């Protein structure tokens, strides 16, 4: 029943995208931290995108992990944005005020398009 967290990292323009899948709970700490490390170790991205489109469950410990990633990114002067959150987890981002610090996009395409800037 439990689906462990998985992460895939790729670069898109000047951003690093971390595509998460499964459950973001206490068991996701190693995966999320390793993914962030990989994401910022090459190319020095100014923005890290956390994509939650394939995440079915986030609990309070998962929220704490996201807070830790955000804290580290801020200390490194990087921006964190999120995409693919369900309505419920979007509400939780609002309640916890994470959405004050992490811009939330409907899906990854919208996030990447925004990061690429308006077409000239």
């Amino acid at each position, binding site marked *: *029943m439990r689906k462990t967290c998985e992460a895939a990292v790729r670069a898109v323009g000047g951003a690093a995208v971390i595509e998460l899948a499964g459950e973001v709970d206490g*068991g996701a700490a190693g995966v999320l931290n390793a993914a962030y490390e990989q994401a910022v170790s090459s190319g020095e991205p100014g923005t890290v995108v956390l994509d939650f489109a394939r995440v079915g469950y986030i609990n*309070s410990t998962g*929220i*704490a992990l996201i*807070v830790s990633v955000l*804290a580290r990114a801020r200390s490194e002067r990087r921006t964190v944005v999120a995409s693919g959150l*369900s309505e419920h987890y979007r509400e939780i981002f609002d309640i*916890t005020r994470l959405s004050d*610090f992490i811009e939330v996009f409907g899906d990854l395409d919208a996030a990447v398009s925004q990061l690429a800037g308006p077409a000239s």
Partner: protein
Amino acid sequence: MTSVARPAPRRLASFAVASEPGNERLALAQVAEAVAASGLAPARLERLKTAVAEATMNAIEHGNRGRPEIPVDVEVTQEGDDIIVAITDLGGEHALPGPVEEPDLLLKLEGEQRARGWGLFLIRNMVDAMQVRTDGVRHTIQLTMRAGTAAAPVSQTGGSQGGGDEEDV
């Protein structure tokens, strides 16, 4: 003297889960199944599921201290429009830390507050009412969600400890 009759509570489910990490998922799934016909709107069902998961995690980790042989009891009842989920551990009055520190994201980001500590905050914000009571070693958190109504501000009620009375969180 007149009295207003309240509908008799109707038990929707009663079950236990072992105090093992991850079993909060079992609890939320069984609660969701039990209330499926209650008329709870999908968004409010998601809120209730999150509150049940967090309360069960607290019961497993803080109440029963992760000892698998000690069960967490879950009872789901409906009383009129109210769906009531009672989650009980055997951790006594120390099951939840107190006083509860209100999470402040900015303080957490600046390292002045630990990153964790969102559980009770989420529970309070997900349901219409939350009560905690301790009766000897039995520590119960009771979550109330009104079916068919808009979300109302959460209320916390409590009283003295022991003898089945309620306590403040």
